[in-house]
């Protein structure tokens, strides 16, 4: 266990070298949030849409932007394709601890870093601007449930990126897989439009995809709008993706051929 803690901590520390640059990216992410909030504000003109009041929608967007940094905006394919292309992966695979848990541990260090230096500062700015849905969770006793939901989302995010990274064993390139994944996450995860406000057919399909865990699920738990089947979907996908990742890791190891030495 200590090994995983050390890996997480060193991933965290490595990032602090780029703190100033990361704060600049935060401003960009805030801008996205403000654009979407303004869009909803103009669209609703203060009226509610479905079960979402105007204030809830603003809160949904603001919280969603901060959650994305924990579930989605992780290092591209967790750095796996670079390891695979350079052959470095061979050294990584002969280490005694499992490759999947080690990679996940170091990714969770990145998540912790993003929590401290991206999500929390952004939440603070959104709070100062009066749009962060703090009062929706205070006293409602939903915070523990939110953290569990968030954990499932983080795991889903890490595992999908891991699988994308592993695909480089077969394709050597992950650029298009990554882009596809981001496009899908933004739409199917409900970055701008909550799933509940989509047409019924889309809503029923999307709630059973893993992308809802990345944003829509934790945010709706925070807002007290989550439904039971969202929990089922998130839990099932986390288990499914973990098994798939473990299986793919074994397949990839058998496939590995390193040229030269």
């Amino acid at each position, binding site marked *: 266990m200590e090994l995983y803690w050390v890996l997480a901590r060193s991933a965290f520390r490595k990032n602090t070298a*780029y703190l100033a*640059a*990361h704060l*600049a*990216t935060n*401003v*960009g*992410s805030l*801008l*996205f949030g*403000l*654009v979407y909030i*303004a*869009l*909803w*504000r*103009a*669209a*609703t003109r203060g*009226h509610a*849409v*479905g079960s979402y009041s105007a204030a809830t929608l603003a809160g949904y967007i603001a919280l969603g932007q901060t959650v994305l940094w924990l579930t989605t905006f992780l290092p591209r394919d967790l750095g796996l394709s670079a390891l695979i292309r350079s052959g470095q992966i061979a050294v990584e695979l002969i280490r005694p601890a499992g490759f999947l848990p080690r990679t996940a541990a170091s990714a969770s260090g990145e998540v912790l870093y993003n929590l401290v230096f991206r999500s929390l500062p952004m939440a603070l700015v959104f709070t100062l601007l009066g749009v962060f849905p703090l009062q929706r969770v205070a006293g409602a006793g939903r915070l523990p449930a939110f953290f569990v939901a968030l954990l499932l989302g983080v795991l889903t995010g890490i595992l999908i990126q891991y699988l994308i990274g592993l695909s480089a064993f077969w394709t050597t390139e992950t650029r*298009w897989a990554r*882009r*596809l994944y981001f*496009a*899908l996450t*933004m*739409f199917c995860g409900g970055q*701008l*439009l909550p799933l509940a*406000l*989509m*047409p019924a057919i889309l809503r029923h399909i999307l709630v059973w995809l893993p992308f809802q865990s990345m944003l829509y699920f934790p945010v709706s738990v925070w807002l007290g709008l989550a439904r039971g089947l969202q929990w089922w979907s998130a839990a099932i996908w986390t288990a499914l993706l973990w098994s798939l990742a473990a299986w793919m890791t074994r397949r990839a190891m058998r496939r590995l051929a390193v040229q030269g030495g």
Partner: protein
Amino acid sequence: MAAWWNIYRILVRYSIRAERQYPWNFFFNLLFHVLMLTAELATVLLILARVGPIAGWSAKDIIFLFGLVTAEGGGFRIFAAELHDFDKYLVHGEFDAILIRPAPSLLSVITRSIDIGQAAMILQGLALLAWASWRLHLMAVDGWAVWLAMGLALVSGSVIWFAMVTALAALGFWTTRTDDLAPVILYGPETAAQYPLSIYPQAIRWLFFSVLPIGFGGYLPAAVILHKMAGSWMIVGSVAAAAASLAAALGLWSWGVRRYTSTGT
């Protein structure tokens, strides 16, 4: 001037030939952009279907604006592939090799590769523009002047975005890394420009008509063409803004080049 144009043509031809080594790239690019655009457009259309026009802009109006901004996005990206990925010149000291060339440094950089795959984005943008113009009966009211206005808007808009990406790359001479600034200077504004700027708070709107002058590329000409703003002469504002922002970006670039210190190798 004519000599530079010739050099430019030769360099472009070679980078297109190099790109042809990867024929699938164009296809994937097209697929990706179709998907992205569909997702973004579907989202906003779903919102409009629920709440009606946003700030007086109907679905067709917003498709028009989306088309304009998308086509401009492709227009500047074709030429700005290297500027978009300028960090490698600064971090690995590749810019040294650019400086010893006899051609102007910016010209040398942008001709290193031409991202012809972005033509896919232009085509999609133009398709949206054409569809919206047809459904909004723009021709019936203003005749061929609409096409002239759209042409001016597309060119000015692409130049404004090109100026912004040049300025972003030039900031790298001070900061060494630019990819962290891109969300603030490029991606965020690009998303913002897809919606009518009148929905944003005063401060953000002011920003989009000054330091990040994207308002002149999308919102202003679209509002004029769609008769949401009086005075067709306002389209000249876009052309003037394009010229001014290009001049400013080139100024910033040459200032940056003067203070460039190599990382060494």
